[in-house]
């Protein structure tokens, strides 16, 4: 009965729960004990219960089909949790706060004196060619000097057992609602397991998010008018927008619900007339925010919104222009930023990164394409990648051309052996690769979620965890280790 973990192991990889000898790690022992009493049929039944719960709870994300329509798809979920000890997590938490601090100082610096460029720590040409640098933001002073109020940083564990930061998402990072809903689903279907562990809670995120946003209000009030701005029901993250609005008790608005009046203040159209808005948690990209300033054809934005923001009459989170640090070339400089602004050593390492803008590194990249992962600097969602070891000669040649044409736009990293974690298929655990996206909230205070959203590549051997490309997710447990 139960699971033979000896058969589970996978050579040369780090597994989150099972060690190289096929023995559950200390943090996984209570889980393994529970599983030892269960048949594959029990696990299949649990998985079905979870799927039903997800359907009932209406957790979905939107994907676009070939005909240009969109469909709501259920959120793929695995019932075996990802477990991490609180001692390790404390270090990660500190490292993420340090990173968010440095990134915000960097963005603020870029839109002011650009000291980091004058001191030759950061090359000027990177900014000159950045797609996300907004000259309209130069000289702006957002509240508390914070630009990236909500940051989602992707973490991976390599086969050396260390945790690395893979990228920082500073534009409109999504996924936090799934982190919260995953915990709800687990409580419904796997309640037995909760009694074996002392699991740190995650549910205070919506109130922390509200506090973070409220602290940005230009008008002091106990409950400033905070709204969530969505591009609308056809956006892939619409579920999350409506979920967060609901959880925070805020209005969920679209661009057409807002107007900027002659006084340069933002108002929402309500049944009682116009009502002033103080803080907008916008889930709309910079370029669609304000047709007067950016994309003139944008139907999602609000004419005059930038005017109101620059006048200090409304707070936008994240601030326009914050995306300048959401660039894989900028990423490579984050450890330098930490040293430069904070005079500290980086707590969390970056994945070693080759910048094609540097001639010698570009040469190395071109000579070693089959070993590397090549990424364009400004894409997100796992699009436009070259995964060297899985590529064909033709693909490599095509990428070499792209790199030579625009070296600034590419970086390369060694292919990481992302750690694996037991994931159920037909009631039996198989190793699948995972990453984790914690969220960092910054305004007058900094909060990091307890754990984050764990994403798992459901296809055997695949390293792509994005939900738009066949990824699933797991609940993430940070365990109070003193209690095991």
């Amino acid at each position, binding site marked *: 009965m139960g699971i033979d973990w000896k058969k589970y192991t996978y050579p040369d990889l780090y597994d989150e729960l099972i060690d190289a000898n096929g023995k559950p790690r200390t943090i996984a022992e209570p889980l393994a004990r529970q599983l030892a009493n269960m048949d594959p049929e029990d696990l299949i039944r649990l998985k079905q219960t979870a799927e039903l719960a997800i359907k009932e709870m209406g957790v979905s994300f939107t994907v676009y089909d070939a005909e240009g329509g969109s469909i709501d798809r259920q959120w793929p979920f695995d019932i075996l949790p990802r477990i991490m000890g609180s001692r390790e997590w404390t270090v990660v938490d500190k490292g993420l706060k340090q990173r968010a601090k440095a990134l915000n100082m960097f963005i603020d610096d870029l839109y002011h004196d650009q000291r980091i460029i004058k001191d030759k720590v950061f090359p000027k040409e990177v900014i000159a060619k950045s797609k996300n640098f907004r000259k309209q933001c130069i000289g702006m002073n957002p509240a508390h000097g914070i630009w990236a109020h909500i940051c989602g940083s992707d973490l991976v564990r390599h086969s050396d057992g260390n945790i690395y930061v893979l990228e920082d998402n500073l534009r409109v990072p999504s996924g936090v609602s799934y982190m919260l809903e995953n915990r709800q689903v687990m409580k419904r279907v796997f309640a037995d397991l909760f009694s074996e562990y002392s699991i740190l809670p995650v549910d205070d995120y919506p109130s922390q998010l509200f506090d973070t946003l409220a602290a940005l209000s230009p008008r002091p009030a106990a409950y400033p008018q905070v709204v969530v701005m969505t591009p609308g*029901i056809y956006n892939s993250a619409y579920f999350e927008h409506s979920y967060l609005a609901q959880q925070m008790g805020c*209005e*969920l608005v679209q661009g057409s619900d807002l107007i900027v009046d002659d006084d340069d203040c933002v108002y929402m*159209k*309500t049944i*009682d*007339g116009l009502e002033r808005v103080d803080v907008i948690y916008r889930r709309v990209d910079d370029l669609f925010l304000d047709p007067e300033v950016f994309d003139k054809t944008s139907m999602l934005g609000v004419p005059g919104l930038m005017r109101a923001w620059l006048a200090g009459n409304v707070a936008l989170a994240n601030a326009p222009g914050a995306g300048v640090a959401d660039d894989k070339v900028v990423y490579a400089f984050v450890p330098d930023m930490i040293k430069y602004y904070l005079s500290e050593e980086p707590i969390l390492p970056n994945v070693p990164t080759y910048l094609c803008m540097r001639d010698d590194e570009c040469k190395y990249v071109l000579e070693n394409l089959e070993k590397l992962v090549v990424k364009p600097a400004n894409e997100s969602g796992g699009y436009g990648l070259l995964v060297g070891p899985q590529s064909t000669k033709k693909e490599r040649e095509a990428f070499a051309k792209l790199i030579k044409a625009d070296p600034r736009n590419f970086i390369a990293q060694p292919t990481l052996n992302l750690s694996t974690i037991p994931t159920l298929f037909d009631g039996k655990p198989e190793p699948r690769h995972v990453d984790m996206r914690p969220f960092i909230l910054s305004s007058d205070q900094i909060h990091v979620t307890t754990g984050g959203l764990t994403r798992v590549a459901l296809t055997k051997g695949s390293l792509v965890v994005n939900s738009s490309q066949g990824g699933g997710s797991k609940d993430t447990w940070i365990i109070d280790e003193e209690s095991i």
Partner: protein
Amino acid sequence: MLSRVASNIYWMARYLERAEGVARLINVNSNLLLDLPKGISPKWGQLVSITGADELYSQEADDSDRDGRQALKILITDEKSPVSLVTSIVNARENARTVRDVMPREVWEAINSLFIFAKDGSAQALGKRGRYQFLSDVIEQCQTISGILAGTMNRDAGYMFLEMGRLIERADMTSRIIDTRSANLLPNDHEMDEESPALLEAVKRRTYDSLQWMSVLKSLTGYQMYRLEMQVRIQRQEVLKFLMQSTVFPRSITRCMLEIEATLEILENGERALLVINRLKRQLDHANFTKLKQTELQHFVDQLQVGFSQLHDELGYAYFGQIQDAKQTQAAG
């Protein structure tokens, strides 16, 4: 409450009520046809024209469409037809999608199942056999949704817009169902067989007449309520009084107006809409159905429908701002 959200809730309720109303409309017409004397051919085109979709149904189509298949497509299955049952349900669902966060989860699930049911099953309603069952099921599911809403939603502004959407559409549908009855009236005297003895004709006509009014009442689930309230046998002016002027029957036009009035008195900014309501109430009050002959009745109903449309516009100006969606059409008057 955001104007857009209020407007979406209002339209969701209207479309749900419209789906139920169209189902009732088709059911009443099917029943009336069964009661028609031999030799009089049913006119499906009039039904289409009552819902305001004339342009989809030409005169030629009407002549060749003996079994009503063409007309029923327009009224039930055709997603391109603005008045079809399926279109209304699709629109109700689209509006519900954007206001999922202000309604209990069960409402969305129920609307979603209605949508799936209608998409899968509407084709069977084109034939005579499956039609009654399909339409009754649609009516029942619409009522289930209303029940969930009534039993679970906070009585806040959102609920008031839900109510007003439902009531305007309901009043409008009752007026259209009365129209259907008028359209299927037996031919006038001079078209009848001149050979038949006058007395026999008169008896026949009276019988058909009351049978048909009974059908109208039944289609509105109003037969028993009529008996309780009016305590007279089924006859034209009494049924019209009941459907237009009753203050107790939930589908009577006056009752709908009274409920909207009560809601508007709680909400602010409803003055102009209240003016329209008061005018409609006066018109209803002063109507004398014994005197109103068939064409005059049709004219009176048209006037009411213009009033509903004005009421809708006033709500739009007062609460929904400019973002009132032009695509969501008031069924033409």
